[in-house]
């Protein structure tokens, strides 16, 4: 039908999107299938649990509220640490971008620290701060700080000189320079930094919880190891991955909203 061409094309586009989405599901489904076959055929008896067993354990963990408690603890740590990192990284980035001397003072030491992964600090932090919340918080802040700081600087230094001229011409106050020029103009880079910072801190947190915690998803995996509970470890890993994905998806939505002025497609 000629007259329904447009409708046909829209339908086609939806089909394509659905097909692409299904393709992404094929690999995990295949993995579960192989896993199930392996468990059924008795490979790794006593070590490898079957998918079915994992689902039952998952239900038990949910019913006892244990899983929710670990998730809540981990998420709370991330939120606290992340906001601290934003509070430090964004102002420091603005300072470094606007006052070059500040950048000259801090860039060598920050360049050095950037090369040291957060996990390397955990033993030191345990010695200094103990196994309390402070250690985990410090690890998260450390992991999130650098991408946030670096991307803030990048975003600001990339602002077109032409826009600074407009700000001078319209006699912007310092507040207007911050809110009407610096922040919106550097938003694309800033948000990329925040997104990367959060995904870094999520990874670092799990490591910190494995080494220095009595709660949280990282701890749950370590505790399961000492009890030889592979099923619980799998659940821990799956929950970490899925929560990470969900957080990143949330960032994409936020990005789309904040940067709606940009050219889409």
């Amino acid at each position, binding site marked *: 039908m000629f007259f329904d061409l447009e409708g046909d094309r829209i339908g086609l586009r939806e089909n394509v999107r659905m097909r692409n989405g299904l393709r992404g599901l094929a690999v995990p489904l295949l993995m579960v299938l192989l896993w199930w076959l392996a468990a059924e055929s008795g490979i790794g008896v006593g070590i490898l649990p079957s998918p079915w067993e994992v689902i039952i354990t998952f239900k038990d963990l949910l019913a006892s509220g244990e899983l929710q408690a670990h998730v809540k603890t981990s998420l709370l740590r991330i939120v606290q640490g992340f906001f601290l990192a934003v509070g430090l990284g964004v102002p420091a980035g603005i300072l470094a971008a606007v006052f070059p001397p500040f950048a000259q003072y801090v860039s060598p030491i920050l360049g050095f620290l950037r090369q040291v992964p957060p996990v390397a600090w955990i033993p030191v932090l345990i010695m200094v701060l103990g196994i309390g919340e402070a250690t985990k918080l410090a690890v998260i802040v450390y992991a999130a700080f650098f991408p946030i700081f670096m991307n803030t600087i990048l975003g600001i230094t990339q602002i077109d000189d032409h826009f600074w001229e407009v700000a*001078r011409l319209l*006699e912007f106050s310092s507040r207007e320079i911050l809110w*009407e*020029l610096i922040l*919106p*103009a550097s938003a694309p880079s800033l948000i990329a930094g925040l997104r990367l910072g959060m995904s870094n801190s999520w990874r670092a947190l799990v490591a910190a919880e494995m080494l220095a915690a009595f709660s949280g998803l990282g701890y749950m995996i370590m505790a399961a190891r000492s009890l030889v509970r592979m099923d619980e470890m799998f659940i821990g890993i799956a929950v970490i991955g899925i929560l990470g994905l969900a957080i990143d998806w949330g960032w994409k939505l936020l990005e789309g909203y904040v940067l709606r*002025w*940009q*050219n889409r497609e």
Partner: protein
Amino acid sequence: MKDTYSAGRIENNSADTFPMIELSNVSKEYIVGGSQLSVLQKLSLNVAPAEFVSIIGQSGCGKTTLLHMIAGLNQPTEGQIRIRGKLVKGPGRDRGLVFQEPRLFPWATVAHNIRLGLPDRGRDEGRLWELLRLVGLQDFAQAYPRELSGGMAQRAALARALAGSPEILLLDEPLGALDAVTRLKMQDQLMKIWQEGSLTVVAVTHDIDEAIVLSTRIVVLSPRPGRIKGIIPVDLPYPRDRTALDFNVYRQELLAVLE
């Protein structure tokens, strides 16, 4: 004679003894690659209130530099620029500038871009809408700059420059990038705005016809370094007919000076 541009319009406003814009011995030099480059040399010019002065010349004659210095974005290396007798030290509400490019903030809507030009930043919504209507963008108030055509973007930039109710409007080839039809429409619009208000306009252009259609005086600059080569007063009644015989006379005169 009713539409004639009369000298009376100037005299009415010249009760105060200072010219609206006074350039005295203005020179500008830049250091480019270690060597000194003279962009403008000993330029002197007075602009009376409500005049429409076009500055014309080849590229590289320092037209944009001159305009930016009047706007206060740039300081002359030598000489002085005065507005109503007061030395220009920086940008001010008394002058509005339209850049060669629209230079709208891409992250802000049209309304917000214009709002940022208002001295009270748009707490007075009425003034904002007045400006939007003036440039015919009331239906695009909530559009983002990427959704505008070139002509619409320049109109938004014009509204932003007019938002501060300046006495002086500085135009840096704002119509240069537009197609011929849009350009003519914008010229008419500019004419209307100039004739309705008591604006003094200094416009940089390299379009001979545009200069003759719009200006009370045309200043011709020579390139490298920019010097005044000639000043041509245009004594034609407004609105001007591009096809009139007199129009051609000015065209020839201007071309002769430009040669």
